[in-house]
């Protein structure tokens, strides 16, 4: 049997898409890399809800919603493979190859919905490879999946609503958060206020955002932080930074970094979908039409992997992504498509407008954080900023040549950690816009795969 739709990712977008497709009577398979549905936003939500129940703790409204969504999904008859890692999507998006329980399979669905969410923008700063440095998201995952918090004195560093949220959650869980160092400045707030009128259309999101920075989540909060270095020999000992005209050092054991989210576009890149550079937000995102369809027919992109709009909007774009597919398979009529579609598009637009306000405040301070000198940019191959600059000086005029010369992006993470920073250095050195830097091709397998697994790959229709 050939699946009507395969959804990659079981976060808010993927779950909403799968449920919607099921409602239309389409056959749906969900492939998810995590052990349980929920995505990163609702990571391990079922276990978390259970823990809250046992401990008579309160589940936030958002989490409650996530738990309800996950429950609806579990109760549906949709097939979901957890801990299934997609290692390839063929050019043109016809075939998906994935690993599940140690075996590899290839399938050819009629349509694909990519709902792989966002990743935290990797921002190389001196010392970021030291044990004791993690992303703020990683700490949230630890908290959610195993109820553990990093031991010792924690410094949170960077910008964005998630940094503040993480600080709050860690403090609530009893973590020793000693400082919150934000790169955000007053000027960011002033600039963001220009977006206020349009943001008013989605007041809930806006209020959540404002509530977040009203609360101070640590003993010490500093803004407009720059010149950051994480110091230590074998692990984190302290953080050094400049605020105003003062240089300060803070002793700590753990540093949690967060510089906002960027779309996870590895699968659209594998498939060869067209991408566009957003020069405001400083990231690449797949080009999609009003129905979430990429430049490749029947390859839809839903949720944050198509542009960062958050969990609520992800559910809307997830549902939206199904409509064209259902219409083409004659599961719904043209008028149903129009009726449901236009409503969802309107809602999606409201979230996009509110988001512009948040984005303006938390614009990543990329100019001030351009890696220099001995800062490791590519963690896998330990390629420093200096080595990349030397590569450019020796004639590497794009990511591809640079890869061949200095091995940046050649490691197992397939450039996921370094490609943005590498492109930023190239852009500066070559004096061309970041959007004009060609992206290196992503080659399969994007997940660890043995030769045996490849040889025994089962092709199913």
């Amino acid at each position, binding site marked *: 049997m050939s699946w009507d739709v395969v959804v990659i990712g079981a976060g808010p977008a993927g779950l909403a898409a799968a449920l919607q497709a099921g409602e239309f009577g389409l056959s749906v398979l969900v492939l998810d890399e995590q052990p349980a549905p929920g995505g990163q936003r609702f990571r391990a939500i079922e276990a978390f809800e259970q823990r809250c129940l046992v401990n008579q703790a309160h589940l936030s409204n958002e989490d409650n919603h996530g738990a309800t969504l996950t429950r609806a999904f579990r109760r549906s008859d949709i097939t979901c493979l957890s801990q299934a890692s997609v290692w390839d999507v063929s050019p043109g998006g016809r075939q998906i190859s994935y690993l599940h329980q140690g075996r590899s399979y290839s399938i050819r669905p009629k349509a694909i919905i990519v709902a792989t969410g966002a990743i935290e923008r990797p921002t190389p700063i001196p010392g970021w*490879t030291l044990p004791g440095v993690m992303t703020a998201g990683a700490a949230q995952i630890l908290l959610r*999946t195993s109820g553990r918090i990093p031991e010792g004195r924690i410094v949170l560093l960077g910008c964005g609503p998630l940094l503040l949220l993480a600080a709050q959650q860690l403090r609530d869980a009893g973590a020793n958060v000693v400082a919150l160092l934000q790169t955000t400045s007053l000027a960011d707030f002033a600039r963001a206020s220009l977006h206020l009128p349009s943001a008013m259309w989605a007041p809930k999101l806006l209020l959540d955002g404002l509530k977040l920075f009203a609360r101070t989540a640590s003993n010490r909060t500093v803004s407009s932080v720059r010149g950051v270095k994480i110091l230590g020999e074998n692990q984190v000992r302290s953080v050094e930074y400049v605020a105003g005209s003062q240089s300060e050092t803070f002793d700590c054991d753990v540093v949690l970094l967060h510089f906002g989210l960027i779309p996870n576009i590895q699968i659209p890149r594998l498939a060869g979908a067209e991408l566009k550079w957003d020069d405001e937000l400083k990231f690449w995102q797949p080009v999609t039409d009003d129905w979430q369809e990429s430049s490749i027919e029947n390859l839809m992109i839903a949720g944050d992997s198509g542009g960062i709009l958050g969990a609520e909007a992800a559910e809307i774009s997830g549902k939206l992504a199904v409509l064209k597919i259902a219409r083409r398979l004659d599961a719904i009529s043209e008028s149903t498509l129009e009726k449901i579609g236009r409503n969802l598009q309107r809602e999606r637009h409201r979230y996009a407008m509110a988001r512009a306000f948040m984005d303006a405040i938390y614009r990543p301070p990329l100019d001030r954080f351009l890696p220099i000198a001995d800062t490791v940019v590519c*963690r896998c191959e330990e390629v420093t900023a200096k080595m990349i600059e030397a590569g450019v000086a020796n004639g590497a005029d794009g990511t591809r040549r640079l890869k061949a010369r200095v091995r940046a992006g050649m490691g197992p993470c397939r450039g996921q950690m370094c490609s943005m920073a590498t492109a930023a250095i190239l852009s500066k050195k070559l004096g061309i816009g970041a959007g004009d830097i060609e992206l290196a091709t992503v080659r399969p*397998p994007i997940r*660890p795969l043995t030769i045996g697994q490849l040889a025994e790959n089962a092709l199913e229709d």
Partner: protein
Amino acid sequence: MSAQRESIEIFRTVPLCFQGDMITAKEGEPVAAAILATHPDFTGKSPVSGRRRSPYCMMGLCFECLMEIDGIPNQRACVASVRMNMTVRKQIGTRSFSAGSK
């Protein structure tokens, strides 16, 4: 790493063998979380410089948590969930990661 304050644990604890030592892990938690809790120093070394590394993203992206799990190298310990009686070892860098071209 310590348990969340004053909470009743819902996880079942299971033994896990790490570097030949028995440690206690929570069934279903990421393997990387269990290791970080008992051995926060480091979980691997860079194959290039030999410098210490430990899990960075906890969501399967950075490959800093590659370890040998039940005899199979190059497993992302943040993606693998703890089961009864696992054996986990540190590994120095990546070993023959891919079947395809680099």
